[in-house]
């Protein structure tokens, strides 16, 4: 087996090398390229990948162009790429026309399934719901909701509003900033005035870093806003952005399928530095296994390829739901501590529920929170 001849497959890489979410994009790209190198070096795998890259430079309009270019100018039928939901929604029609598949390695807001997308990072029942189950009993149910002004923030905050209502809490404020905006003074004053129990942060990139730094200053002025009393919680913050946030991040919480830990198992000896890196790495590993079995596997073959099996990935043994093409994932909640996360809770396998069709508010918050109190 060791000397088997490898078959070459072109694979699309569609990540921005610049722009305000570059750190996330770089982490995903690093994960995909590391997996390509590991698959290519693996004498047991009959697959050799040749990356075909396109850089949309952080411009949402250039993802569809890049996707079309990869599909037309190369033999690649599988593309690992996209960070924002905006860009993912832009490329889906191109994938449908060109018969391609996007392997999507970022958390997203759910309420989507496409035959042309494999969702390898968490949807809301794998991040938002368990995060709120964790924080409401510890900090309270009154939240302040923040987001960058596009679909991720709008939709995550919509679900958060429903969860807060179900928990008997109150939305103390809901504010959006344009992508890339770093003037957060007004947000900070509104949070100071409304004194929520927690802040749900769906700002991305530079807006998020500016907010966390300003919030740390607020915490020094008023102890209510220290992370042990009123944490900033999010579903997309990972190790890859901690350097940009610095000491201001300490004590705040994030939920995801993976945080980097020193010990533990590592498939192929690779231990990703963030869940973005892990999900992109996992995407390439799963694809390599599928192409090893069926070198012609295209989008229409994926449900059969996912059926009744699991794949070794940095998340563990990963199952992909054949109906929704979303991965079953661990759910880990971490508290920022230095340049990493301290794990505060962990569930090993949570099946995806992208439309939240199994949501049960009693199971979410417990019957006691829902009892109507007589006057």
């Amino acid at each position: 087996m060791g000397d088997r001849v490898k078959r070459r497959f072109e694979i699309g890489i569609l990540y921005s090398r610049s722009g305000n979410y570059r750190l996330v994009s770089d982490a995903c790209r690093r994960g995909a390229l590391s997996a390509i190198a590991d698959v290519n070096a693996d004498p047991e795998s009959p697959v050799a990948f040749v990356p075909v890259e396109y850089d949309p430079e952080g411009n949402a309009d250039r993802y569809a162009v890049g996707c079309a270019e990869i599909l037309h100018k190369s033999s690649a039928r599988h593309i690992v790429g996209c960070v924002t939901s905006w860009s993912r929604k832009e490329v889906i029609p191109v994938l449908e026309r060109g018969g391609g598949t996007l392997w999507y390695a970022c958390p997203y807001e759910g309420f989507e399934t496409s035959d042309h997308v494999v969702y390898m990072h968490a949807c809301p029942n794998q991040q938002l719901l368990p995060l709120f189950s964790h924080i409401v009993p510890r900090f309270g149910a009154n939240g302040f909701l923040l987001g960058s002004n596009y679909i991720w923030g709008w939709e995550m905050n919509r679900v958060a509003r429903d969860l807060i209502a179900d928990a008997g809490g109150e939305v103390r404020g809901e504010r959006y900033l344009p992508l890339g905006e770093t003037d957060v003074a007004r947000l900070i004053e509104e949070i100071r005035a409304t004194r929520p129990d927690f802040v749900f942060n769906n700002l991305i990139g530079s807006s998020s870093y500016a907010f966390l730094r300003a919030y740390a200053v607020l915490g020094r002025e008023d102890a209510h806003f220290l992370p042990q009393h009123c944490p900033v919680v999010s579903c997309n913050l990972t190790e890859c952005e901690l350097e940009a946030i610095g000491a201001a991040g300490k004590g705040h919480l994030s939920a995801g399928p993976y945080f980097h830990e020193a010990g533990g198992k590592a498939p192929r000896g690779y231990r990703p530095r963030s869940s973005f890196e892990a999900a992109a790495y996992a995407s390439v590993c799963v694809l390599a296994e599928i192409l090893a079995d069926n070198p012609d596997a295209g989008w229409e073959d994926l449900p059969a390829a996912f059926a009744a099996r699991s794949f070794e990935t940095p998340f563990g043994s990963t199952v992909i739901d054949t109906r929704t093409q979303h991965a079953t994932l661990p759910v880990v909640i971490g508290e920022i501590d230095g340049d990493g996360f301290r794990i505060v809770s962990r569930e090993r396998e949570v099946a995806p529920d992208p439309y939240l069709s199994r949501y049960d508010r009693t199971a979410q918050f417990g019957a006691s929170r829902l009892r109507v109190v007589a006057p």
Partner: protein
Amino acid sequence: MSRNGRIPNLGGATAYVLHRPHPTAQTLVRQLSAIGLAAIDCWPELPPAALSADFVFFDVDLGFDEQFPWRPGEAPMPMIALIGSEAPGRIEWALFTHRANAHVVKPVGTAGIYSSLLIARQNFEERKQLAARIDALQARVAERHTIVRAVAALARDTDYEQGFARLRHLAMSWQMSLEEAAGRVVALAENEDGNDERHHA
């Protein structure tokens, strides 16, 4: 963006797909189950159990009235039209005869189905509420004659305005609608008249 409504959870809902065996029906059933619904395809008729369904998708291209166990336009659940040929006569049948609450264009893909469920349900509920309001208003209109008789009975020797004011006062103190109060006043007046007549006899 309205903050009042809440997107309903569709988990556990049942949908019937009334379409001949075809990739469209397969795609639809697969996508509905991905969204969390129990989806059942059938052709050419809806089975009796469909009466308790939460949604019915029906084929507009080849559909006909006898497929449905209810009179045209009286479906007890939201109806979603599956439109292939956009022939005006077929759309007329779906829209005016069967009063579709939403539609999906064929060939069916993964996009558009979730929103059609939400739009159909909202449309169906609004239409139902509107019909109930119209029924209530019609019932009130039908009571106009009773109100006139009650006002006349209460006015006696004074004017109409005072009679009406007395009726409103009675409705308030009896904690009932003007129409109900008028009904009671008329009944009481008729009793009194009957007694008077017997007395005089």
